[in-house]
Each structure stands twice: as structure tokens, then as C-alpha cells.
């Protein structure tokens, strides 16, 4: 029964240049740590036993929130607590960040860490002794995925509460390595594979998020067992940019807690672009979302219930947006 951290070398670079150099020269057994709220328990459970841990907490270039060039830029090392509290951060993102875990965790966890959160599953996020007794799963070095033993992939679930809203808000992320940097849409960061769930190279660091200032409404709905601590049973973010009330020109619907990556429900998005937002179209779009997304029995409460909850979550987030929009239109009307 292991309860203590394994031994490892600990590095704490103070600049981005030093950080990417360390990562680049470190072997495959080097990991980076942001807030550590997911990594440290994983190490205690021996899901990871890295030789070197590189803490990013002192990398100044990864800190802070600023508004420039028509975008809000958030350093990936910014604490979720700071994201929640900052007036520079668009409100939908702040509200979504406030649903992550608990105040204690948000005091330590970072927004970049949340975006890069490892996928989760009933068979992997378990103590070491449990995994030995049960047999190691595919993600854990074994050769079988216990969720779907006949398939040859890992179905572990993407669990970030920040990614759906950030994708809905057209966020880009800046990735930096020793050899260069690139900016990609956040949704391109993810791959629907429980083991290789991030497309960024191992030597790349996610340094910041850039949220463009687009005239839009956006919201995140998180269904969870308890009002704090728990991951989403299903999370749904939605956004739409408006020309005039009732007609959407760009709609995004993004789910979390369902697949190994955030899931955009393009069919429902296109339906709403075509049909516009109305109580009827919202229900229909929610139904479309429910019918085109599958669930596995790999998190809390089983797959059937979570499958049922997808249209509920989508409907609720859309209704919330429609309500806000109507209020806004009404406000405009009185101007």
C-alpha cells in the first residue's frame, strides 16, 4: 500500500527558455508539473513514476492575464482562482473555471493544467494495489482496456471543465518548444484517444491561451453529483455569435466528460445555424446531440445515465444562452 511519493529529481526553472531546454533535454521519464493537483496524486498511486519533475510554477512568462490586440491572453500557469476572480477574463470562462473541483484545488491548480488534464477512467485512477489486483489496463501498461476489452484503444475520458467553454469561445493556444512556437485552435490540441489525448509534442509547452473578442454569448453547464469536488458527469458548453436576435450565424456546442477529447456536436451546431434559436429548435438540437454521441461505462453512474443526460445538458446550456440573449435584445430595445 503506497501512500508516499516516489523519489524523483525536482527542477524549478524561472524562465520559459530554461523550461523548454530542460524538457527538451529530459528523457521520456521527465514530466512537467503545473499546479500538481492531478499529477501528485497520480504519482502517489504510482500511475507515474517520473525520474524528473519540472515545476512550471516560477516561469514568469506563463503567468498572468492581460488584454491586448483584441484578445484576452491568459498565461497557462495562472491559478484557476485568479481566472475566476479576474475582470479581464470573459465571464463565461470565469464561471466555468469556478466549477472546477473545490476552492482548495483552485488555489493550486492552473488553467493550463486543467486544459492538459490527463484522461480519467474507473480503471486507471485507482491506488496501485487496486490496479495490481484488478490487472493493469491498457493505459496503465497492460494489454486490455477493461471498459471495452474487445477494442484496441483506451476509452479514458477527457474531464476538463475549462476546455469546452474555451473551445466554444474560439480560444487559441500558444505552444512553445526549444525549436520554435506555434499557435493552434484549442480544439486541435486534443485527440480522441485515452492514452495519447494531446496532439502537442512532448517537448512543447502550452504557454498561454488567447481568447478573441468576438461578439458572442457563451455558457457552460456542468452536471455533477455534488456541488463541489466532483468531475462532470456530462458538461456542455455552447456559444453563438449573433447578427440579430434569434438568428445565429456561428454556433458551437462542446461536450466534456464523454469521450477522450472534448466533443463538438457539429450536427446540432449546423441544425441551429439553419433553424435559428427557438424553444423548439433547442429541444431538437439537444436530441440530435443525444443521438450522435456515445458513452462508455467508465466514470460515475454508468453509461446509460450519462447518455440520457447529454440532451439534458445541451438543452439546459442552450436555454440559458437563449434566455441571456433575449434579455440582451430586450435591453437593446429599450436603448
Amino acid at each position, binding site marked *: *500500500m*503506497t*501512500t*508516499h511519493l516516489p*523519489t524523483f529529481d525536482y527542477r524549478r526553472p524561472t524562465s520559459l527558455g530554461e523550461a523548454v531546454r530542460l524538457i527538451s533535454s529530459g528523457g521520456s521519464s521527465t514530466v512537467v508539473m503545473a499546479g500538481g493537483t492531478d499529477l501528485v496524486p497520480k504519482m502517489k498511486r504510482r500511475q507515474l513514476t517520473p525520474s524528473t519533475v519540472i515545476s512550471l510554477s516560477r516561469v514568469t512568462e506563463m503567468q498572468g492575464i492581460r488584454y491586448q490586440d483584441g484578445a484576452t491572453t491568459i498565461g497557462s500557469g495562472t491559478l484557476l482562482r485568479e481566472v475566476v476572480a479576474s475582470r479581464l477574463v470573459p465571464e463565461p470562462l470565469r464561471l466555468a473555471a469556478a466549477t472546477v473541483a*473545490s476552492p482548495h484545488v483552485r488555489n493550486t491548480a492552473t488553467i493550463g493544467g486543467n486544459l492538459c488534464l490527463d484522461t480519467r477512467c*474507473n480503471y486507471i*485512477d*485507482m*491506488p496501485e*494495489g*487496486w490496479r*495490481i*489486483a*484488478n490487472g493493469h489496463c491498457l493505459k496503465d501498461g497492460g494489454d486490455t482496456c477493461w471498459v471495452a476489452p474487445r477494442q484496441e484503444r483506451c476509452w479514458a475520458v477527457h474531464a476538463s471543465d475549462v476546455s469546452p467553454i474555451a473551445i466554444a469561445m474560439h480560444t487559441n493556444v500558444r505552444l512553445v518548444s526549444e525549436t520554435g512556437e506555434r499557435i493552434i485552435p484549442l480544439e486541435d490540441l486534443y485527440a480522441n484517444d485515452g492514452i495519447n489525448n494531446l496532439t502537442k509534442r512532448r517537448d512543447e509547452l502550452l504557454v498561454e491561451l488567447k481568447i478573441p473578442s468576438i461578439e458572442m454569448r457563451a455558457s457552460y453547464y456542468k*452536471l455533477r*453529483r*455534488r*456541488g*463541489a*469536488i*466532483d468531475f462532470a458527469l456530462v458538461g456542455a458548453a455552447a456559444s453563438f455569435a449573433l447578427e440579430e436576435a434569434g438568428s445565429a450565424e456561428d454556433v458551437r456546442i462542446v461536450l466534456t466528460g464523454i469521450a477522450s477529447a472534448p466533443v463538438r456536436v457539429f450536427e446540432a451546431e449546423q441544425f441551429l445555424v439553419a433553424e435559428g434559436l427557438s424553444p423548439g429548435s433547442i429541444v431538437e438540437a439537444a436530441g440530435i446531440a443525444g443521438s450522435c454521441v456515445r458513452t462508455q461505462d467508465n466514470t*460515475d*453512474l*454508468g453509461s*446509460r*445515465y450519462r447518455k*440520457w*443526460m447529454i440532451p*439534458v445538458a445541451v438543452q*439546459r446550456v442552450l436555454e440559458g444562452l437563449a434566455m441571456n440573449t433575449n434579455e440582451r435584445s430586450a435591453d437593446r430595445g429599450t436603448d
Partner: protein
Amino acid sequence: MVSPHLVVGERHPRLDAMDQTRGAVIYADDVAPPGVLVGRLLRSPHAHASVVRIDTTHAQALDGVIGIITGEDLPTRYGILPISQDEYALALDTVRYVGEPVAAIAATSATVAERALALIEVEYEAMASTLSLRAALEEELPLLHGDGVGRNVHRSVALEFGDVDGALRSSHHIEEDVFFFRGNTHAALEAHSATASYSPQGKLTLTSSTQVPHYVHRTLEKVLGLPSGKIRVIAAPVGGGFGGKTDPFSHEIAAAKLAMLTGRPVKFTLSREEVFYTHRGRHPVLMWLKTGFSADGNITAVHFRSFLDGGAYGSYGVATLYYTGALQATTYRIPNYRFEGVRAFTNKPPCGPKRGNGTPQPRFAIECQLDKASEALGIDPVALRLRNLVEPYSSTVNHLRITSSGLKECIERVVAASDFDARHGRLADGRGIGIAVGSYMSGAGLPIYWNDMPQSEVEIRVDRGGGVTVLSMAADIGQGSTSMLATVVAHRLGLRMEDLNLVTGDTDLTPIDLGSYSSRVTFMAGNAALDAATAVRQQILSVVGRKLEVDVADLELAGARVFVRGDEESGMSWSEAVQLTIASDGPLLATGSYRAPELAGPYRGSGVGISPAYSYSACVVLLACDRDTGMVEIERVWLAHDVGKALNPLLVEGQIEGGVYMGLGEALFEEQSFRGAHHRGPSLLDYKIPTALEMPPVETIIVESDDPEGPYGAKEVGQGPLLPVIPAVANAIHDAIGVRIDEVPITPDKVVAALRSAERGRSTRFGPSGVPAFEFPEITRVEPPVGFGVT
């Protein structure tokens, strides 16, 4: 003016409140003797296997490993109940659940100890495992206890009082239901911890987070073969017990053995994962309940069957089995009653006693069924309950002696406070209100092992300056038992609580108390303390009376003075009176004790359920249920509890609120569940105890029925208030959305499944459909008490 009633009935913070708040309390894991070694347990990865060979050579060779023991070092069987001596501290030749301890290591650091665990080689020969009630009761599988294959039945019982079949035949209405209570665990914040040391003179000292230092003492005596005088067990303040620290445990025995072998102190503190495997929590119980009613709603007969999934060992399970059938009769008058029950062994962590041991499960069934009957009979649920109440000072059909009962007042007061009548059946869709009641023992009538000695003893010593020390083995597990002792003694001696010194939970220093379980401490240790304090009081008053030439009956002891009643300036101070008494009589010491009256009925099994007094509770829950998600939000809880007399209303309220919290957790969230042999989530992320956000406002109502045998009239409050909470939630959910969830916990997936089934015109109920095919033993027929049935 000195009031004679300064202490009892007043609101006082617990004596340890400031230390608790400051973090100054020394818990078991804070104990750190010099040179202490770190203990770790190797646990079985198999649910059921023979242990063929254990090789510790490589582990032993690791630098920093000081001692390793295996089952062969502790070959004596033990168990908390004399009839269930089925455990070894470390598996001897068979492992029976995933997580069962197999070997123990003492090392110089946690890192070394954990590395060494991986170096112990164990060869197992796996056997087929029994993982469900049905498998245990219906299939031929390798026996957990015994050789060969067969049904894994631990114990079964069949009792009948009166004529159930006859009464059912002539009943106007019959309700028949199946319920399932899935079982959960204590989830105390403090993980179990024990530190042992062994002196060169051969004295073993074990400091442990235990509710039962006396039973741990007895077990160490048996397993280690030491005389009792060579063992000292100290119960550290416990950071949450709830029944989870009421057995003697592997880590306690291993710590003791390793300390003896290495000559160095050894500490084991369990990880959260290990606490889930150590378990001894609420039994999963499948229940079949058939109740007959007359046209006007009187219960005519009850036939109840319980099927308990006991896990791998006995623990308190035989008692739990009997409890599932015993306390039905303490709230409602049941004229004819048949109880059939069976406890199965399965290859899972052993179940045991959790707050309410064996009674929340049938209480859930009874109270939900009463609501169903109320609909069928067209009688309001409150009226149906009121018309069936047990009378105070009566006997139940199964020979339980009932004394004080404030149940009627409890019901009336929660109904009034919650505006139940105006709300029930009348709230908007999605909001509901539900009611239920409960009852619990104020201490088990019999000790765990048969003996003629008192169940609790208290000693009081008074020093020459008037300082008073109260000694009792009662273990304070956060319920405030130490403060309770201070309340009783201070009140009796006219002193303040904070004037007293309390020495508790130490087998070397304190006289026997059997432990903090079965809600026995206030009633039993409280009475023993009152007895001892009364002896001190009488001795002082008689010496002072002689000195002042005043009749003892005219003397008063209050405000730290002894004086002639009506003249507070007369007499002398407490310390002068003490000195006078010591000068006259020698050392001022007194003892007191408590023995429960003989209550057992004329049948085998009647020892379970008897108690010198029963507490009563009634609960109303107001909630909202989301039809789309199945999520339940508790809006408010009203709980009235008959505690006999609130010695300290502040602590009574605390216990009620804690019981409500735990009851809500069991009703909606908590589940010790397994996927095959593997725990579904041995962590506080996966095992969902409610957070502060889920805890609604609780309106506590204290009812005082003044029990004739309780200390100052007091009864229990530690366990009873939990009982009605769970069925009140279930009944409120039905009121809110019209479906019945006959299974606990009521999770959102079950609610939505029931609603979807109802929408399709199918069943409006979610719950078990049947019970295993099991042949109960031949029924033992017991005559109801003389005079029972005469109204």
C-alpha cells in the same frame, strides 16, 4: 443565588472544544515515540485464494527493514463476538477478500517499508469466489469458512411471535414489498492508527484510535498470550468512529507483535484505501416485508425477511442479523410478528456495525411501506403512524421492555414545525415532503462476552485541595462522552464541568467501560458516574453534617460550597469540606457502577435488541427533485428526538445534526460497492460523502420524556436520529415526483430510470424484484409476553 441546576440541561461547549479548534488534540497518528518504526501491511490481490508460500527473504534483506511477520507469527483466531472467532491478524492459509492483510513490515521509513512490501513473495492458489448474496445462498461454491463447497451461509434465524398467517388471512389490506439497502461505510475523517511499544520489563502499550479499548485489550491478551496486566491499551481521542473502530484490527495486533519482536515502537496508520478495505460498515440488506392492516389502519401482522451480505468475516454480523429483526416492534405495535433472516459470507471486506447497526435498513423498508399502505388505505401517513404507536411503559410482541417514549410528541412537533399537513401531496411538481420515525437502544442490554460484572464502572478521586478526578474507560469518539461524564459529576457535586479532571480510555488507569458502541455510554457510564458522584456527595455531606450538627437532608452542595439549605453563607467551601472528610475518613475515593436490568426474553436470540431504554425520533424532509437529471436537493430537515433529558442541549443538537448529515449521505450518495471483487472507488473522490454545499438547514427539536432509569432521565442520541432520515427522503421523493425508489442510495440514475419507466406506462418503481431462494430454518415459536394483546 446559587442554582442547584447549573450544569445539567445547560448549553456547554465540549471540554475539548478549544483544543479541537486549535489543533492541539493528540490523535493516535500524532503519537511519535522516539525511534518509532513505520508499519505497513501487505494485502491480498485475490478475493479468495489459498496462501501456498510466503517468502520474505528479499524484503528482510532490504536495508532499513527491522521486522516482518506473517500469519504464522500470529496463529490465534479471534473476533469481536465469542461466537464469531473467525479472523487472523494476518491471513494464515486463506485470503478471503481483496485487501486482506497477509504480512506486516516494520521499517525505518515509509519509503523502505513500501519498497519492502513489493519484495515479499507470496504464492497464491486462487479459488472461485462468492461475490453476491444470490451466489452465496443459491450456488455451490467453495466455502469461505470450512472445507469443500456449499452455501456460504454464516447464520440464519426464524422466529415467530403470535400467529402471523392467521392474522394476515383476516387482514383487510396487505402490503408486500422488496427493498434493498446497498450498504455503505463510515468514512470517518481520521484513518485508523495504532502505535505499540514494548518495555524491557515486558509491558506492552498500544495507543489506538479505537472505540473499544477493553475489547482490544482482551483480544491482545488472547492473540499475544500475554497476561492482561502486561498490556495497556490507550484509546486516543478518535477522529470519527461511527462503529468503524469497534473491532480489534490487524494493524493493532501487528503493531503490538512487531514492537515485541523488534523492541522498538511501531506505528501503523492506514491509508484511505486501506480504511475502505478494513470497512466493518453497513451491511447490504435485501428485505422482503409483508404487513397486514385492518380497515381502519391498525397493523395486524408483520412478516419480515432479511438477507445480509456480510462480507468475508463475522465481525458483529450475528448481532447485526438479529438487529434487522429486533427493533421493528419498538415504534409500532405489531400484534403478530415473524422474522426470518440470514447472513451470508461473501469474498468482500467484512461488514460490521455502523451507526444504527442493522436497524437503518429495516427502518427504511418499514417507513416506506407505511407510506405505500397509507395511500392504499386512504389514511394520511401521519395519522397511520400515530394510530399504531407503541404505548410508553409496555412490552413488545418480541419481549422488548419499553419504558419512556416521546415518539408521539416527536411526530406532532415535526409535523407542526414543518407544516407537513399543508404541504404533503400539495406542493408543486418536483417538490416533496416526507416523514418517517425511528427508535434506537440506549445501550445493548448485554455485554459482548457473557459475564456477571458491571457494564460500566467509574472512579472518582478527590485531592486535598478539593480537585476532583473522574476516571472512566469510556472512549471519546467525538460524541462528547468525556464532557458527558463531567456534566453528570459536576452537577451532582455542585461544581463546574471545567473544575474536573477527566482520565478516560486507558486500561491501566481507568475502571472498565465496555466501549463507545450501541449508544451505551451516556446511559451506562453516565449512571456509573452518577453512582460514584453520589457516593462522594453522601460521604462529604455526612462528615459536614456531623461537624455542623445538621441533618444531612438539610445540607446542599452547590456553587462549590456545602451549606444549610436556604442559607448560602452557612457551612463551608468545597475544599474545606473535602479536607474535613479526608481528615475524618481517610482518602476520598469512590466508585460507581452500572448494570442493566435483566431484560432478555424467553427465547434464543432475545439478547439482541434489549436495552434499558429506547430513544425515539421523527423526521420530516423537504426537497426538490429535478425530473430531467434525477438530482435531489434537500431544502430543509426537521428532526425531533426524544433523548429523555438533554444533559447538554448543545451536544444533543450536534449529534442530531451529525445523524441527519450521515443519513442524507446514505440516502442519496454513499455506497460501498464492488465491481466483481474490486471496490469501485476506495477514495473520497469516488465514495461520495456530502459536502457542506449538500447540507441543508436542520431544525432540531429536543423532546424530553424523562426516562426513569437514565442518568437525570437521559437516553441516547448518538445513533437514533440517523434512522428516520433515509426513509423520510425516499418518501419525500415520492411526494415530489410520484415514483418509488425502493433502493438506497437513491442516486439520480435510479430516479431517472423510474421516471422513464413511468412515462412509458410501466412500473413507477425502481427496486429489487425478488429475493434469493433460501430455505430458512424451522420457525421457533415464542409466546408473546403475558398480557400482550390485551388492550
